[in-house]
């Protein structure tokens, strides 16, 4: 598919607010994600990252505002989980009763065949299943799990499980993929390997863009690890309840909103970044996003990248 103005969307959040009774969580949050972006979402604990993610996923739609994704070629409200949004959790992403291969092929099966077809047209389903498994196998090869295709999740290490989970979501090429602290439970070395894997998918995006095609992978990665956010993302978005809401005429905190939105340096997968160079960015983010004592106007550090 060629890239055009009509399909250059991953996600649009328009004036999203959410609260639980008296507790205000999200306030007037606006966020446009374009096709092919790798957006790192960061913020202090309790800032509503999970609430936002659940709202985007559609399991808990926001109380106010709209979340739009491309569904069947049209912008539509994402008020329930759907095929246009993928998700990778820290755990429970894989089905324990399926092998790695079948876990990855599962989405193709759900998306491209119906129960009636599978139950009634055995020959057709056999053919389709072989095709899906071939595609899944090729994808697993790409993420370096060619040898582990026939293992069950319980037989795999945490790192392998997350690789499969990412493959399971990415093979569907949804409009946007949400990664909710995907590497939170992994050790440092495994984390870096998986970051490199994500950057390989970013390379595929670059190739597609250079050919004028729609980039296949758009993702939001939520992480509490700033180095990871900077290395994997091409855009850093900070969500925080620490902003100068008094200046906007509120007498108590209306909730967290986007207070930081800047492009991030882009790395090649084989490039080992010098984390020292991240120091300035980290310092910047700690001040603006994480420090409760430093309050600034909400749009002060929102420099929209030129593509936006």
């Amino acid at each position: 598919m060629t890239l055009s103005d009509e399909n250059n969307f991953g996600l649009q959040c328009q004036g999203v607010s959410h609260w639980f009774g008296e507790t205000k969580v999200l306030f007037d949050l606006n966020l446009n994600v374009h096709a092919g972006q790798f957006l790192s979402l960061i913020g202090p604990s309790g800032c509503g990252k999970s609430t936002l993610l659940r709202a985007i996923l559609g399991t808990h739609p926001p109380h106010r505002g709209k979340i739009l994704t491309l569904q069947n070629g049209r912008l539509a409200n994402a008020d329930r989980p759907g095929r246009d949004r993928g998700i990778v959790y820290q755990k429970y992403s894989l089905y324990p009763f399926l092998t790695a291969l079948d876990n990855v092929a599962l989405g193709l099966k759900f998306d491209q065949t119906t129960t009636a077809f599978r139950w009634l047209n055995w020959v057709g389903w056999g053919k389709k299943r072989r095709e899906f498994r071939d595609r899944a196998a090729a994808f697993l090869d790409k993420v370096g799990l060619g040898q582990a295709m026939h293992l069950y999740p319980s037989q795999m290490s945490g790192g392998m499980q997350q690789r499969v989970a990412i493959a399971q979501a990415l093979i569907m090429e949804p409009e946007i993929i949400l990664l909710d602290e995907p590497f939170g439970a992994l050790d440092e070395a495994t984390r870096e390997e998986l970051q490199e894997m994500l950057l390989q998918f970013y390379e595929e995006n670059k190739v597609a863009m250079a050919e004028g095609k729609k980039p296949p992978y758009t993702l939001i990665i939520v992480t509490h690890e700033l180095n990871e956010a900077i290395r994997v993302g091409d855009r850093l978005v900070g969500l925080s309840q620490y902003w100068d809401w008094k200046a906007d005429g509120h007498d108590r905190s209306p909730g967290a909103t986007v207070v930081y939105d800047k492009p991030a340096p882009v790395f090649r997968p084989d490039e080992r970044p010098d984390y020292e160079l991240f120091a300035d960015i980290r310092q910047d983010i700690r001040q603006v996003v994480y420090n409760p004592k430093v309050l600034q106007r909400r749009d002060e550090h929102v420099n929209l990248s030129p593509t936006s």
Partner: protein
Amino acid sequence: MIRGPISQAKSILLASLSVALLLLGYTWVSHRQHQVNPKDTTIPSWGQLADGVKKFTRPDRKEERWIVEDSIATGRRFFYGIGLGVMCGFVLGMLMGCFSSLEAFLQPPIALLAKVPQTAALAVYFVVFGTGLSMYVAMISLGIIPALAVTVYLAIKDLPSEMLDKAYTLGASHFEVATEVVFRQVLPKFIDAVRLAIGPAIVFLIAAEMVVGDVGFGYRIRLQFKLTNMNVVYPYLVMLAFFGFALDYGLRFLQAKLCSWYQRDSK
């Protein structure tokens, strides 16, 4: 050492030793009894037991072999009852697990039914269903439905909601989530529940046969017990035990075949 492993040869040896001790013990008790009363039939000698086996394997005056007619009658009642109970229990459990309103609606009767002792309620079944096949089927199925339904629906409640949401993001329909995600996860636990339900089902069936049966294992055991023909009663009990054991083994085999991932998981 606590939980220390032993060799396979040793475990086979110990198992055969326990069986041999049981048989020897029986022989000794029976021998002592026959010294006191040579005509005793309460603890039959091996020879008397052989006579008993002949009695129920050879045609009687009506040209019927007891073992054949009893097996057919009891087996039919058992499998119809278990079959209906398993189907209804599973469907009810799935519905209760998937739909909260059905859960609220069905929970009181199921909780109540689970607490009624089936053997105490026999009279109700006789009055409502008579004494034919339908009575046995109703009693067995109603007896096992509560436990099966509750197992299924608790297993569904246990599923992390992430797994269901994930399926929707992969393009699954509601029906596909139920059949391809929920069902697959619940199946091994359901098979375990069926294994546990076999014991009570046999108890209900034998008890009812003892009261109103005119053929079947319960009927035969009651009749031969009244005549103190323990040489028929004991072999019948052993056969019942083997029947339960074989079913249990079959279900475990089925579980290992259908849900190999579950076996791996529980190790």
